[in-house]
């Protein structure tokens, strides 16, 4: 791994496969980025890993709501994501943000679904002439 400079896509694919194989990737990834002096790309690499995982059927979704997610709501969102993306495994990272007022915002590596009331209010405000 310490040879020629690898592209982020290849790095992400490698660590995604490692994760699917059940191996820990936090320390090796951190060590690699430090060794190759690419620590500034850490966020981008993580995003690429999530994208690579999504391509392999494992979806990581950031779900933001104004209140804590109820179990049935979380299940409904999980089912929704499986149906719409074809993912076999969906992992939800819940975030609570009262500023959103209501509704849900789902961020996946490939798209964003924002049905929050805050977003609709912002759209209404943005419709000013």
């Amino acid at each position, binding site marked *: 791994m310490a040879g020629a400079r690898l592209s982020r896509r290849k790095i992400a694919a490698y660590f995604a496969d490692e994760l699917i194989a059940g191996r820990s990737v936090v320390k090796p990834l951190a060590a690699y980025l430090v060794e190759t002096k690419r620590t500034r790309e850490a966020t981008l690499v993580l995003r690429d890993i999530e994208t690579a995982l999504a391509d392999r059927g494992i979806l990581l979704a950031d779900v933001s*709501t*104004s*209140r804590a997610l*109820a179990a*049935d*709501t979380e299940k*409904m*969102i999980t089912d*929704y994501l499986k*149906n*719409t993306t074809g993912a076999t495994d969906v992992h939800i990272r819940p975030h609570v943000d009262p500023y959103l*007022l*209501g*509704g*849900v915002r789902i961020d996946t590596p490939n798209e964003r*679904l924002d*049905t929050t*009331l805050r977003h609709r*209010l912002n759209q*209404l*405000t943005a*419709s*000013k*002439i």
Partner: protein
Amino acid sequence: MDVVTQFAAAEGAAGGDIFTTLGINWQLLIFQIIAFLILVWALGKFVYPWLMKSVDERQAKIEESVKAAEEAEKKAESAQEDIAELLKEARVEAKDIVTTAKNEAVAMVADAEEKAKKRAEKIVADAHEQLEKDVIAARKTLHNDTIALVALATEKVVGKTVSESIDKKIIAAAVQERA
């Protein structure tokens, strides 16, 4: 006549000259005749020509004056005619000038009226345009203010009224709508 002849015959018979009888001195008479002839000659030579010349000059001057007076009279008559003609022409010209001035005044008034009418129409059109712009701007302002007010009111109301159950319904509706 017989008396005179008898008187002359008597005197001749008495031995006397007729000139003596008549009391005439023939020598003095001849002298007087010569003096008279000399006087006539001198007058004819020196006085009459000068006098005649003066008279002729005077006559010529008088004739010239008369002629000049006649010419002046003719000129005066001609001048009168010219003046009359000039007055006539002047009247005609003045009439033309007045007519032209009247026409120009009418044209100027009509032109001024036309310009004033166009200006008034432009002012009205500009006012309409400005009014429409103001109305549009007011509508925009009202629209934006309404949106801002609605957004603010909605935020305030929704923040207090959206319960957990309502939130779940909102999420479910959104997910089902997208599914």
